[in-house]
């Protein structure tokens, strides 16, 4: 795939100050991800995966370097602007689903649209369609507590898609699921990829990594390896 550039990291460094000592979570990362790519980020724990995902997800700003998201430099934006970008351009899928307990399925899916100030009628129909798409059309009024893990993660995916994001960020999306549900969720990711979504997924499971187009391996805060899988 060689569509337009979705993610471009230039010399991105993230340093945490822990009292006297400095912790270099990311060191001079250069990464280019194009539209439609399905990238797995792998590596041992403590290698900087989460930090990289936080930077990519605009939850955290790099200490140094530039981050271009869809061609726009977002590394120096204000907190409010970053919130806007998260709400309009990014879709998050979490390991522990992170649904809001007091809201039902339909409302959970609509949360990103709500913060975009998009009308209820419109967002309801979009959310309903997405619930259907992930196979939860019959459960739109259920609360998260009433759903299985696999179903909750489907809601999570629907929520990540509701704003039609530029980039989907998934953090161990099958980490809390049994293998059968995990396979179903991964099947959904394959489907999304086939529809041309750009996906970045953090995982430590090599099997899952191999379903992606490309594997980026991190170690001690820098990219150790960046390989393309033979498929696709």
């Amino acid at each position, binding site marked *: 795939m060689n569509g337009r550039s979705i993610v471009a990291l230039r010399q991105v460094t993230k340093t945490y100050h822990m009292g006297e000592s400095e912790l270099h979570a990311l060191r001079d990362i250069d990464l280019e991800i194009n539209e439609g790519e399905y990238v797995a980020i792998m590596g041992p724990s403590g290698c900087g995966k989460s930090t990289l995902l*936080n930077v990519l997800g605009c939850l955290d700003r790099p200490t140094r370097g530039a981050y271009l998201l869809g061609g726009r430099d977002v590394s120096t934006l204000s907190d409010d602007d970053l*919130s806007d970008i998260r709400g309009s351009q990014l879709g998050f899928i979490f390991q522990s689903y992170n649904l*809001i307990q*007091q809201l039902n399925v339909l409302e959970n899916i609509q949360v990103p649209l709500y*913060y*975009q100030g*998009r*009308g209820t009628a419109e967002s309801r129909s979009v959310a309903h369609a997405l619930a259907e798409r992930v196979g939860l059309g019959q459960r739109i009024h259920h609360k998260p507590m009433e759903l299985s893990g696999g179903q909750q993660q489907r809601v999570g995916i629907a929520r990540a898609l509701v704003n039609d994001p530029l980039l989907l960020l998934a953090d161990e999306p099958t980490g809390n699921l049994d293998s059968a549900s995990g396979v179903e969720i991964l099947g959904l990711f394959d489907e999304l990829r086939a529809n041309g979504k750009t996906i970045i997924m953090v995982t430590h499971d090599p099997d899952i990594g191999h379903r992606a187009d490309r594997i980026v391996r991190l170690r001690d805060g820098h990219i150790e390896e960046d390989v393309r899988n033979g498929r696709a």
Partner: protein
Amino acid sequence: MAGPRLQKLKSLFTLGKTRRAVALGFKTLWLHRMRSFLTMLGIVFGVCSVVAMLAVGEGAGFEAQEQIRRLGSQNIILRSIKPTDTERISTEQSRISEYGLRYDDVKRIQDTIPSVKVLAPGRIIRNHVWNATRRVDAEIIGVVPWYPEVRKLRVTEGRFFTPVEYEGYVNLCVIGMTVADHLFPFSSPLGRNVRIGTDYYKVVGVVEPEASSGGTNGSSGEGQAAGNSMANDYAPRVYIPLTAARNRFGETLIRQRQGSFEAERVELHEAIVQVDRLEDVEETALVIDSILSSQRRSKDYEMVVPLELLRQAERTKQIFNTVLGAIAAISLLVGGIGIMNIMLASVTERTREIGIRRALGAKKRDIIVQFLIETVILSGTGGLIGVIIGVVIPIAISHFAEMKTIVTPWAPMLAFSISGFVGIVFGIYPALRAANMDPVEALRHE
């Protein structure tokens, strides 16, 4: 092309957003309804006690002021009192004590003080009033024809006597409602005769009960029973022309007391001075006092200035309101702290939710609004419940305890808006704490 329309759409969306934020607030609070309810209680009690106490205070104050006002704020009331017994020289069993206001005093006041508009002297004699075999122990008050006007007495039936009848020493009387009810339970008293002592008086009118003149009764013991015209609101009273009273009863009253006879010589029991202008009342009172005291060795009169009483009542009420305000402020403060406490706990508990919302595009402002709405809902609902209870309690008090209560419209409004204000003030800190969380940290929170 889309300028104003876009603006309109935008405002519609934000309106929808606020509405949904409020709905979400209710939903979240409902999820922990027990906790929300208990949190609200502080505000409920605060607001309800403020509204109820204000209503009771207002009612009591109103009654006191109304009573004083009915005495006439332009009036100065002079009353004869028996001087304290220090000057009693004789130890005889029977003697005549002479004291009180005299006709010369009245004349002097009338002639020397220009600000005095009207003067209504009066005599009060305790006696039985008869209609055939029916009897009432009443105060016979000898008054002048303009007495009702000065005293703001309303004639409900018939009329008061005229100056001509007054000058003619005619045996007429106007009776109070209590007397009318007792003596003429089945028919109108007008045109009928009542007997007082040995004389008959024709009833020409009925008046409504007169206001008592404040808490000075019995100031010098039982000796002034006759002068005690303010025993209570519904004391039986009969009004006769002062001229007739003077004629029929004379100036010496004899009373039997503990085996000894006591005679009193009192020309006038009371005199009501009406002052032309309200501003002159207090000064006139001072002048009257100096005129009267220069004429006598001992103080055998007392002076009641309703205007002063009114001012005093107003001051008392002000103090009362200040104390109440302080109590209210403290109770609302305590309620507010309770709310803040719970909201802080809630923020900590919902750290993860905050992280999720931030990740999904919520700005700091959105988080602040969400938590502020929750506190305002808590305090506002608490305030509303408090207002409702606070309005019901005075009604119940009025109903069961027969105490006057007044719920002024501003009291519930004030209490309610204060509770809303408390919600905002005590909600800001927890909301800011929620909004300033690092989204990454918040998401990691278990």
